């Protein structure tokens, strides 16, 4: 999550869901929290019951809107305009929490003279290379801060990277050389540059292009900006309604700026809560199965001139000041966990056994390669891309190009049976005889049939014990990986070629138990926690990690979860307080609210009694309070910083709460680490009915469209063939692609069929009948759905033009107890530049009454539809 990562230092929610009950105002935007996070939503309700004002900004009036004080319908895809409007409101009306902003953000830092804003260059920041279609971020740096590596490839800006790595950037700068002006008056200081950048995001602009009435906008602005200052705090909750845009990271950045200006980070009732939709989404980036990072957000080495020697790689990524000064300790300990005794100082701890990243190996990156016949094999575990991924037709057809496919799931998914009953087979585009793919479908154990740890949306690790054994041949994925690894290692055992050196060195001696030889899950968690190499003692704390190969640690951020042989803190079930200390383990160091040094004034006293969280205890000479301090425990507030010469977190002194950043402050302006600019800027979606009101540049220039004949786009802005805005979303009754819920009687009956939500106005205009059928089309696909006409959908007036929005939940497919067309077939494969996520929340479509054609007729219709209007 580079949006949060670059702004604050860590790519995780800054607070705990329980803490929402301490908020004075909450904005929920880019999320239908009541639908998709109903358990966590109880604390929003708690806050509401205590008198907090709850605001929901969403194109649809959904189950969340139904529970809040203020509902704001806005045009899907206009989020940055709205949030920029709030930022502008705060700045224009001097509503910022000045003392917080001056001390805890980079508002005072002065930018280079050659930096140019989008306001100067009609939608581009300085450094745009039109030929390469990417930015050179050199001119975004702070004044006086020479870039490391003499201006060569900057970390976080590698062409191949997806920006998950360390989730920050900033390492290209030396924190000792910044210039700043704490009066915030310098015309090139961040505060003034930002003021100019957002000056056109006025209430009138919001009304005209977001479709939000001015008085409603002002009501929100007044309500939320009042929840600020020493006595009050406000929180923001978001989910994939923000991330799944061609500019998703910058939407989150806008929220980060707003919260830093209002002094809402690191304080009780404040923060930004990234709501992750599944049991362990946070866990899946912390311990990633992503191509560009290693556990703990350490970047994968890229195939670049400076990454073939460990010392160059470390030099590039290690910072002198702040927590990333420990980069070498984290990385070398990981290599020791992976390669054991074979990893030595002499062989760079096995650094060259790690593969090098050479391009975009993300889901879409390799799937397009698959479509082009460049892949041989694929493992799919607990995923159903045939239904769940964008441009399903392309995804399914690509599977037919594989030599072999392994699927592990609890049921037979559409992905596993693409060769048998997919729409492509029905339409005659594929036939089983022509598909040479060998398919292995393994039965997987469910969560109640295996032990293991989830890391939930608030960075909380919770260990589950196993209530029952899985049925038949169903096994955990730990079992599968362990025994597959055993077999593969056996094949390589006597094969000394370089390619097998790492494989042979890989530590794989987990103890097994039971009749199925299940590997001991706790032994894996112990390795993740880390241990001393010499005497195999569990590490108690991140500070115990060493850079000399004497410690091993699978994920430095999780260090402390298993501090003693018999002490699994993820399995603790003894909650002591509202924040849940005593229940599970939160990374880092069991801090429930991170950056909580900011909950105290620079002198170490709480901003107010009402909002106290962590403070300096003068008697004990250490940080104390209601949470573990996210700060060196005995670093006194009056300690002077030594950014010029100091090292580590101590160099930041006693009053810089954002310890992962080399300058220790929150970043209103992100000088390094984002590929599409240091400040959020409004761009239209890749497909939009309207032109960008601010700039000639319509969409995010750095986003990747991946346009090709099998991934076509509508014209933008304003394609008359596809006049309406389309958003896809989920319902509380179903889980994503539906494999775990469409198959169940109790959930299938609650939402048995695909439907489309439309306003009465749209229904009138094109003749849709409630309960009847509609056909929805985009350049990628044509699908049909039942019509739900509801006043909860409404057309918006955008620049004098009535824009209709069409809603489609996406849970159905061609298997299960209840079936329906695959909504994701409508989406394009597109990549947001920083995390390579697709745009699902704002695209364009056509909708017509009646059912769609079948078989080849459908393809003909799609071709006709695409003929220029």
């Amino acid at each position, binding site marked *: 999550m580079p949006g949060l990562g670059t702004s604050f230092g860590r790519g995780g929610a800054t607070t705990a869901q329980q803490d929402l009950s301490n908020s004075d105002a909450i904005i929920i935007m880019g999320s239908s929290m009541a639908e998709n996070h109903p358990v966590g939503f109880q604390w929003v309700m708690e806050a509401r019951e205590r008198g907090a004002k709850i605001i929901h900004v969403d194109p649809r009036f959904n189950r969340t*809107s*139904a529970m809040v004080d*203020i*509902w704001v319908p806005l045009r899907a895809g206009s989020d940055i305009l709205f949030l920029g409007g709030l930022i502008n409101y705060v700045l224009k009306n001097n509503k910022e929490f000045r003392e917080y902003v001056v001390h805890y953000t980079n508002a005072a830092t002065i930018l280079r003279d050659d930096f140019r804003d989008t306001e100067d260059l009609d939608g581009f920041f300085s450094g745009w290379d039109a030929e390469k279609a990417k930015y050179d971020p050199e001119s975004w740096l702070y004044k006086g801060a020479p870039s490391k590596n003499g201006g060569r490839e900057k970390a976080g800006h590698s062409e191949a990277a997806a920006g998950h790595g360390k989730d920050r950037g900033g390492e290209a700068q030396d924190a000792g050389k910044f210039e700043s002006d704490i009066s915030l008056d310098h015309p090139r200081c961040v505060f003034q540059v930002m003021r100019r950048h957002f000056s056109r995001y006025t209430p009138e602009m919001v009304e005209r292009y977001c479709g939000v*009435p001015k008085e409603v906008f002002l009501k929100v602005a007044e309500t939320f900006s009042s929840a600020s200052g020493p006595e009050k705090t406000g929180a923001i909750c978001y989910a994939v309604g923000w991330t799944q845009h061609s500019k998703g990271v910058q939407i989150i950045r806008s929220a980060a700026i707003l919260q830093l200006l209002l002094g809402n980070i690191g304080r009780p009732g404040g923060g930004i809560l990234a709501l992750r939709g599944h049991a362990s989404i946070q866990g899946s980036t912390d311990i990633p199965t992503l191509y560009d990072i290693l556990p703990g957000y350490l970047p994968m080495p890229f195939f670049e001139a400076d990454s073939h020697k460990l010392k160059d790689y470390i030099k590039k990524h290690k910072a002198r000041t702040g927590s990333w000064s420990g980069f070498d300790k984290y990385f070398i300990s990981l290599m020791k966990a992976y390669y054991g005794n074979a990893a030595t100082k002499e062989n760079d701890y096995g650094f060259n056994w790690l593969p090098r990243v050479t391009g975009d190996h993300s889901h879409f990156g390799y799937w397009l390669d698959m479509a082009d016949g460049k892949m041989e094999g694929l493992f799919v575990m607990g995923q159903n891309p045939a239904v769940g991924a964008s441009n399903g037709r392309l995804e399914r057809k690509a599977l037919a190009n594989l030599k072999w496919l392994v699927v592990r799931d609890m049921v037979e998914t559409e992905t596993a049976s693409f060769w048998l009953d997919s729409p492509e087979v029905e339409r005659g585009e594929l036939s089983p005889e022509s598909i040479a793919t060998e398919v292995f479908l393994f039965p997987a154990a469910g969560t109640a049939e295996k032990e293991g740890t989830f890391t939930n949306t608030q960075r909380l690790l919770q260990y589950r014990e196993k209530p029952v054994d899985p049925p038949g041949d169903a096994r955990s994925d730990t079992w599968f990986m362990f025994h597959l690894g055993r077999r593969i290692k056996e094949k390589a055992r006597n094969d000394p070629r370089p390619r097998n050196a790492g494989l042979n060195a890989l530590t794989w001696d987990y103890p097994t138990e039971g009749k199925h030889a299940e590997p001991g899950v706790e032994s894996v968690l112990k390795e993740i926690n880390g241990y001393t190499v010499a005497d195999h003692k569990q590490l108690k704390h991140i500070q115990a990690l060493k850079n000399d190969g004497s410690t091993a640690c699978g994920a430095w951020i999780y260090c402390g979860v298993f501090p003693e042989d018999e002490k699994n803190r993820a399995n603790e079930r003894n909650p002591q307080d509202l924040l849940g200390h005593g229940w599970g383990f939160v990374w880092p160091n069991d801090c429930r609210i991170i950056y909580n040094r900011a909950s105290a004034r620079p002198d170490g006293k709480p901003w107010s009694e009402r909002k106290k969280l962590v403070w300096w205890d003068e008697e004990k000479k250490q940080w104390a309070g209601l949470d573990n301090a996210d700060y060196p425990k005995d670093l006194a507030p009056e300690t002077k910083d030594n950014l010029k010469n100091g090292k580590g977190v101590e160099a930041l002194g006693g009053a810089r709460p954002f310890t992962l950043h080399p300058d220790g402050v929150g970043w209103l302006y992100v000088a390094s680490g984002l590929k599409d600019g240091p400040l959020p800027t409004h761009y239209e979606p890749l497909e939009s009915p309207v032109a960008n009101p601010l700039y000639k540049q319509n969409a995010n220039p750095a986003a990747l469209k991946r346009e090709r004949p099998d991934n076509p786009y509508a014209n933008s802005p304003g394609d008359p063939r596809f006049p309406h805005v389309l958003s896809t979303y989920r319902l509380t009754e179903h889980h994503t692609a539906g494999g775990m819920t469409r198959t169940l009687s*109790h959930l*299938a*009956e609650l939402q*048995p069929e695909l*439907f489309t939500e439309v306003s009465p106005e749209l229904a009138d205009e094109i003749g849709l009948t409630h309960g009847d059928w509609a056909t929805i089309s985009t350049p990628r696909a044509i699908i049909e759905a039942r019509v739900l006409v509801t006043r909860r959908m409404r057309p918006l007036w955008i620049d004098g033009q009535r824009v209709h929005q069409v809603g489609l939940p996406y849970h159905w497919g061609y298997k299960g107890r209840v079936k329906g067309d695959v909504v994701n077939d409508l989406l394009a494969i597109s990549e947001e530049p920083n995390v390579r996520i697709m745009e699902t929340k704002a695209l364009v479509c056509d909708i017509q009454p009646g059912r769609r054609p079948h078989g080849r007729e459908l393809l003909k219709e799609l071709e006709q539809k695409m003929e220029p209007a």
Partner: protein
Amino acid sequence: MSVTAFLTDSTLCIGCKACEVACKEWNGIGEDGLDWSGFSYDNTGAVGASTWRHVKFVEHAPEPGFGGNAPELNSWAFSSDVCKHCEEAGCLEACPTGAIIRTEFGGVYVQPDICNGCGYCVVACPFGVVDKNRDDGRAFKCTFCYDRQKAGLVPACVKACPTESIKFGEIENLRGKARERMAELHLRGMTDATFYDASDSSVRGTHAMFIVRGDPRSYNLPPKPEVPTIYLKKAWTSSAIGAGLLLAGSLLAFLFENRGDGR
């Protein structure tokens, strides 16, 4: 052993249907139709033989600037319906086999092994809750989780509710909570909030009480539910009077006849 009740506070209901599913899971009830209704997000229709908890979705027209819970407006209301477990239960009174009993917790419980499927209870329920099973015709409805309560557990729907919209406890205690909640809601400007327990009707109060916004009829809560047997009483009284008159008449007739004989 205390007399217990539900208090369903729909101002806290988020429409997640966890109660509906938890009820079916605990009681081993399957789906009863996979048909899309088009009626808001409600595809299970109403409480019946195979749906013992049911979440209603009541849609109004939302206005920008007002969420559904704003004092001024109530635009998409959810409320979890259930058997009311009446103090004066029509079903119980109508049951000829003794299958329907009142439990020690105050709930009304249909004993499936005794029910013969006559259906008298179905027409005797003033709320349309009791329903005959399609397979064998026996009557089924919410058991008030009699099994769970006996084991010291709260009903499954209560356990599953994430927002404490469904409260459970000793009945008088809950009534007190309801009064406090009503005062609070009115103070917050939700003057349309209503407490419903039918204590002013012949059912003489229920063990499933509700707080709803707007007209209770929108939530299938009738304004004046009546136990049909109150009419039976009238009928019995008139029959008794009739029978008495008849008897008196006959006696008189004999009397006069005797007199006649004596003449």
